[in-house]
């Protein structure tokens, strides 16, 4: 059963520009689903369609297999409480303190226990010392925690995150991402996270969709998409965030670690091929004892050596590809 299913969703802006073009997306319960795209790709519009902050022209969105909204059916207020949202600019009410902000959704729902539930949510995000502080007295990271507590207090099934960490520094970003990841694990809250930051998506998502010019160009499990992006935009997004170089015309070889490679491959290239390779970039991590990631090596200048390395890698059944940096 999918928690959120988006079917053939299309949207045009007033100037007739097609922002979203027949989007299909299936988000399952417990997913941390990343939607990655460059600015203007339509990802923010897409996520705002899910809780009805935007309307759309064609298609349907289903929530737990029930029709949530469509081009003709407006979303019901009560569903908004089950689908929380956090924003890039936090959007806390500036004239209300932390407790009042967190209790806001409960107040809208006429919840008799609102103070108690709000306090619990504040404690859960670790801001028990700031209960009566005003947003202007909090750091960005703390404000985003309040925003998370505000949706958490309503006990949501889904949290939509609209570039929630884009305004934060790297350390704070990670702590917010980890908090979201914990909420996903502890309460089974499905998270839909849009971002233009590859690192943010990579840190907590299990699935990812890459959106470009209003269409989904690639989607699937995170490792699959990130280790071997096929679409040009996907490659651009995934490599550019990792490699900031001026390697203008340089040719390199990207070796993929997909969990099946169990040998010191670089050392072996040097030993077995007798070719000295230089590593341009490496990013690997060990998940459940297996190595995932990628290593980028400079393609040897002599074509003999280069072919030797490629043949060796092929023989060893190692996934690799040639990459040319523009």
């Amino acid at each position: 059963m999918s928690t959120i299913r988006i079917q053939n969703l299309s949207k045009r802006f007033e100037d007739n520009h097609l922002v979203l073009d027949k989007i299909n997306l299936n988000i399952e319960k417990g997913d941390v689903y990343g939607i990655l795209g460059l600015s203007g790709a339509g990802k923010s519009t897409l996520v705002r369609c899910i809780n009805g902050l935007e309307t759309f022209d064609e298609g349907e969105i289903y929530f737990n297999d029930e029709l949530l909204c469509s081009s003709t059916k407006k979303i019901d207020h009560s569903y908004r409480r089950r689908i929380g949202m956090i924003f890039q600019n936090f959007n806390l009410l500036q004239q209300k303190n932390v407790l009042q902000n967190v209790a806001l959704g409960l107040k809208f729902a006429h919840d008799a226990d609102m103070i108690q539930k709000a306090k619990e949510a504040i404690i859960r995000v670790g801001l028990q010392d700031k209960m009566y502080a005003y947003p202007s007295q909090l750091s960005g990271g703390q404000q985003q925690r309040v925003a998370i507590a505000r949706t958490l207090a309503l006990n949501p099934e889904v949290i939509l995150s609209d570039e929630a960490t884009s305004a934060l520094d790297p350390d704070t970003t990670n702590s917010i991402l980890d908090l979201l990841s914990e909420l996903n694990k502890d309460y089974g809250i499905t998270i839909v996270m849009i971002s233009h930051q590859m690192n943010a998506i990579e840190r907590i998502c299990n699935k990812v969709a890459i959106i470009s010019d209003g269409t989904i160009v690639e989607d699937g499990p995170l490792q699959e998409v990130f280790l071997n992006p096929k679409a040009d935009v996907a490659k651009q997004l995934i490599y550019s965030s990792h490699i900031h170089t001026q390697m203008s015309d340089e040719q390199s070889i990207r070796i993929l670690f997909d969990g099946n490679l169990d040998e010191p491959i670089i050392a072996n290239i040097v030993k077995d091929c007798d070719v000295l390779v230089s590593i341009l970039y490496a990013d690997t991590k060990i998940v459940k004892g297996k190595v995932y990631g990628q290593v980028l090596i400079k393609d040897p200048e002599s074509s003999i050596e280069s072919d030797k390395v490629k043949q060796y890698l092929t023989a060893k059944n190692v996934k690799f590809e040639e990459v040319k940096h523009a």
Partner: protein
Amino acid sequence: MLNHFFLADVSAGQIFTGLGYTVLMTFIATIAAYLIGLPLGVLLHLTSKNGMLENKPVNLVLGIIVNILRSVPCLILVVICMPWTRAWFGRASGEWYTILIPLVMATFAFVARIVEQSLAEVPAGEVEAARSLGATNFQIIKNVLIPESRSGLITGFVVTLVNVIGYTSFAYNIGAGGLIADIWTFYSKNTADFMTQFTFWLMIIVVVVLVQVIQELGALIAKSVDHRRKFKK
């Protein structure tokens, strides 16, 4: 004795009585103007472009009504309102309350604009966040738009009060009294030498002090209820 400096027709007691009427008519008229102008300003905001209830025709019609009312000179309104005042109070002139209806008529459209402006300063993101928390439109008005813009609303209220104090000068024309009308009366009886009369200047100083006190007190309250980031230090 202070009265020694006064002409026979104006005493210190009369100045205080005049001040009392000015304050009374100003506050009652302003509060009444807000009873009409506040909902109207909210409606103007909601129906404006990208507003929660965006509605061009309604916004246009309300806007035109407000603009017309704002452009009619107050003195004309005083005359136009006389039949209503008579119907309501049984007389159209000669008592302090006979100026109330014209003051309200001259002010509520101004209030509507000022309220609309204050509400427009609430960041759209805050309204969106409230919507994403399941708020109804009415809950957004009550819990987000008005409380979030309260500092601006208080400042607007003060600006309106000062405006209405100015409008109370037209009380002179229908004999409704108040300190500013008294200044006119004093002038009309002493056209030759009013500039050298202590009484004249004293009455003006009292009006200036009244405006100052209202303005400063309002600014103080507006600041004390504002929890937004303060850049000054």
